[in-house]
């Protein structure tokens, strides 16, 4: 789905066709759900927050600027919602793991069982290292290298300037490397915004 298709869906929604919103939900529910899961640590909470994100986006859809990319705008709504929830809920997120056989369905890595075990351990280490980064650095890295967003989209999603987004990605990668190696990072702030 490119920007024109998104714009077509949005125009239809604004003409009163609710079902046209389904295409946008289908397209972007996975990255938003995973964002919420990283924030909340719970599938149920992540589903609720994902639903709330899309409802907020629907309510604000008139304010979406035509010609802009929809995903960064949606992501910024999700991130703001997560920020609100994190302020209200100060308890630590639940223990979670991505080490779930079902969760590897999209990975194009080798299917050999031993290799998969090694990869799983690598992903666990990565998940732990990412979890120790401030949220804005973590999300900048995931948007850049996992969701393959442009720097402009990252800046829009995180409400940063372009240079600010580049700095977050660059610095986040350095911090992640330190955490991943098990060293002492400069800014160890778990789940902080």
């Amino acid at each position: 789905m490119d920007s024109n298709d998104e714009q077509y869906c949005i125009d239809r929604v604004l003409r009163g066709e609710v079902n046209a919103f389904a295409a946008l939900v289908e397209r972007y529910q996975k990255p938003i759900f995973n964002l919420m899961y990283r924030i909340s640590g719970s599938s149920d909470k992540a589903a609720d927050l994902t639903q709330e994100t899309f409802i907020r986006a629907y309510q604000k859809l008139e304010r979406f600027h035509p010609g802009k990319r929809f995903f960064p705008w949606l992501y910024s709504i999700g991130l703001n919602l997560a920020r609100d929830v994190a302020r209200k809920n100060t308890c630590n997120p639940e223990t979670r793991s991505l080490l779930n056989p079902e969760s590897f369905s999209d990975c194009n890595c080798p299917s050999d069982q031993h290799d998969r075990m090694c990869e799983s351990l690598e992903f666990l280490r990565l998940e732990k290292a990412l979890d120790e980064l401030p949220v804005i650095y973590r999300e900048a890295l995931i948007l850049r290298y996992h969701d393959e967003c442009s720097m402009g989209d990252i800046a829009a999603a995180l409400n940063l300037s372009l240079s600010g987004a580049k700095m977050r990605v660059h610095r986040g990668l350095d911090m992640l490397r330190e955490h991943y190696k098990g060293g002492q990072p400069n800014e160890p702030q778990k789940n902080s915004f």
Partner: protein
Amino acid sequence: MSRKKTPSEQPFRDSPAELDKTAYNSHQNQELRDLKQLIHCMPDREPPPGLTESILSSLEPKSVPVWLRFHRWVLKPRTLTFQPLKLVPTAILLALGVAMAFHFAPWRQNPDYTDRRQENLIPVTFTLTYPKAESVCLIGSFNQWNPGGHEMRRFGKRNTWVLELRLPEGRHEYAFLVDGSLVVPDQNSPFYQSDGFGNRNSVLFVSSDEATNI
């Protein structure tokens, strides 16, 4: 005479410390590349089934005001595509339109506009008494010494030739062209200027202080 050394002949300049630093940087870069690849392959969790239906069931159809729809329509970027070959007739039509618009422009038809342009011009009356003349034209620096359009009118029975012009302020040289061949300077002019060919031109200084009659 020196010869440029090939890379294999150049002395190895990197010190052991610099070599260590290079190796360290290379190692760091490899680590970063591995991390980027690992993030890229990081598995996603699948959202629970039925999430889309759950979201859609809680939405009400929107009713957007017309003005807001118009506002969005105006803001929406559009892409124009064209073929250069098809653009040629359009360009010709456009050029014709511009030319016609210029030709029939109001300022070319409206005398008020001409008057406004002539507001800064000073009225000057040229007179010459030359009894035997059949025709007299006024030539000067203000008409590039071209007699066309500046024929003087015979006035009364005293063979006085008259022409009224509006000239800009400043210094002008002029003379009278009698019967199309004889150049006659203005005898009443207080100033003269040689034309470099043995003739004299009269010199006129036009000022906005008052109308000048020669």
